[in-house]
């Protein structure tokens, strides 16, 4: 992992009139790596990815893919790129196989059309007009075309939106296979589960800036774990302990909350120690911790927490300004 990055972006900017959608983004993606770009709608994901794909020029900064400027030197690298846009169309009157053959015919080194259609599970639909395909099938045909040229660098913009769980898993397997073969992938997705499954690293984009990058494990590790339970006494009645009744917990973050159903929620950075303390405490008092649920943070929690804190920070900076 010491070689030069396949994708290298420094201070990239993109404006639409007075609105700046991408505000100085840095990003490196190394060979064989999958980086997932996360962000809410309007965070600038697609605007940014289009710069890297070479579909639009950057208004500032430097973008390099395979050592070239993807916009101005596009012809030199386009044969090595596979691009699956969020929305691109098909001619509805062509069949699946006609569409695939046409696309293959424009590529320098196409893989066999039948193999590619089989890989995305469309072999049995080859002679169907594209207009008759379901949304999920069209998405899989999209993926087929993007991977047809056996690309060195693959861009996937929300590749599994609209897919059923089974097709989503199949897509993941296909992408994992390409990663194993050395393909470099830049993925944008709304599904955090998808990022957790596929990504070596994650970059979280917010209001045109990358607010966080790192391995999934690192990002998740920084987020407190959660513990939830309902306290019941020896008679089985629910009791609501006040904060003062609870034992002192070393890693606890914020004040534990009790929701409307009497369920107690707390967040801790020392899950094992605090859980042990809680269990001892309950045992000593002959209390039951019903529906006990203790878990490390998920990427989703980390993402939502980050979203909260940085939007608060943004608000604060705007007030200050």
């Amino acid at each position, binding site marked *: 992992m010491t070689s030069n990055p396949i994708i290298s972006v420094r201070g990239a900017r993109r404006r639409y009139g007075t609105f700046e959608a991408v505000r100085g983004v840095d990003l490196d993606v190394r060979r064989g790596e999958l980086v997932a770009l996360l962000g809410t709608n309007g965070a600038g994901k697609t605007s940014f990815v289009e710069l890297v794909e070479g579909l639009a020029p950057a208004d500032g900064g430097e973008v390099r893919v395979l050592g070239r400027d993807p916009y101005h030197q596009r012809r030199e690298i386009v044969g090595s790129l596979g691009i699956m846009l969020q929305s691109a169309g098909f001619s509805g009157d062509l069949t699946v196989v006609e569409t695939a053959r046409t696309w293959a015919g424009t*590529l320098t080194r196409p893989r066999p059309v039948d193999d590619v259609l089989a890989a995305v599970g469309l072999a049995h639909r080859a002679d169907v007009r594209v207009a008759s395909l379901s949304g999920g099938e069209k998405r899989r045909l999209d993926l087929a075309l993007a991977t047809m040229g056996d690309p060195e660098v693959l861009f996937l913009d929300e590749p599994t939106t609209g897919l059923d769980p089974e097709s989503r898993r199949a897509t993941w397997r296909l992408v994992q296979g390409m990663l194993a073969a050395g393909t470099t992938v830049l993925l944008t997705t709304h599904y955090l589960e998808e990022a957790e499954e596929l990504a070596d690293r994650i970059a979280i984009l917010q209001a045109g800036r990358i607010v966080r990058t790192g391995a999934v494990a690192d990002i998740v590790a920084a987020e407190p774990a959660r513990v939830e339970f309902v306290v019941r006494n020896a008679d089985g009645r629910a009791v609501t302990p006040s904060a003062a009744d609870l034992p002192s917990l070393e890693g606890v973050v914020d004040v534990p909350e009790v929701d409307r159903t009497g369920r107690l929620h707390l967040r801790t950075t020392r899950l094992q120690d605090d859980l042990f303390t809680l269990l001892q405490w309950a045992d000593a008092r002959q209390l039951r911790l019903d529906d006990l649920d203790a878990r490390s943070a998920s990427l989703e929690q980390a993402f939502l927490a980050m979203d909260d804190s940085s939007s608060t920070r943004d608000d604060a900076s705007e007030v200050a300004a």
Partner: protein
Amino acid sequence: MTTTTPTPTPTTRGRTTSGLRPSLRRVGVLARAELRLLVRNRTALFNALALPLLTVALITAVGGVGDGAPDVVGPMLLNVLTLMALTFVVYYNLTVAYVARREELVLKRYLVGESSRAEILAGAAVPAVVVAATQSVLGVVGVSVFLEPPALVNPLLMVVAVVGGSVMLTALAAATSGLSRTVESAQLTTLPLLFVALPFAGLFGGAAPGGSSGVFDTISTFTPLRPIADLMMLGAVGLDRDGQVLSTFGETVAAGRLSVAVLVAWTVIGVLAARRWMRWEPRR
């Protein structure tokens, strides 16, 4: 694999997308897909195959061409057929096709692939141009069989008229598509060329409305379709713009220079307009 290279090279797998042969291959593949779509779209197919022929039949039926002498009527019909084929099959159909491909996001898809913009536009144009050219050739055959074989003083000028006219009208179609928000509005945006430039081309009698001389004729000389008509007449029977019949190849080449210049000028205008107005994805 142990040393690090200064920069990753995109050509490590020996791929190259540039060059004439790959370019022609891509245009050919795109053209084949476009031909399939043309065959499957009955409206477009009717416009392409029947409309020019029906127009010729109609004009003949109402006696709108020449004074009835077969040696005059033949070239006139040929002229009408070529103009109709180029304007409806190439210009109108292509404008609609470009708008349709743009709105269904197909242009955007091709754009992310290896094809260049010019290749994508050319690929869509090839079937229309082939149909128009075939109709012109069939026109020559038909006129020769049923009326009188045209002298064909300079066939090269006829080829220049059809091929050059196709290139010019393809560029203008790309530009017009950018000014058309929907396939339906393309029926309006194509009107200026179809109903203003077409009469100026001398569709009904070898001269502009207002006679063969004067200010109308001067204006019409510089309209986009006029050089196509002039070069066709010059090439087919040696008839120049002043109504004189030239009999040698050299004379027709000299007489055709202005028309070729006008054709080139409109092609340049078309390309510039296409660069300015052509859009590759729907307005957001």
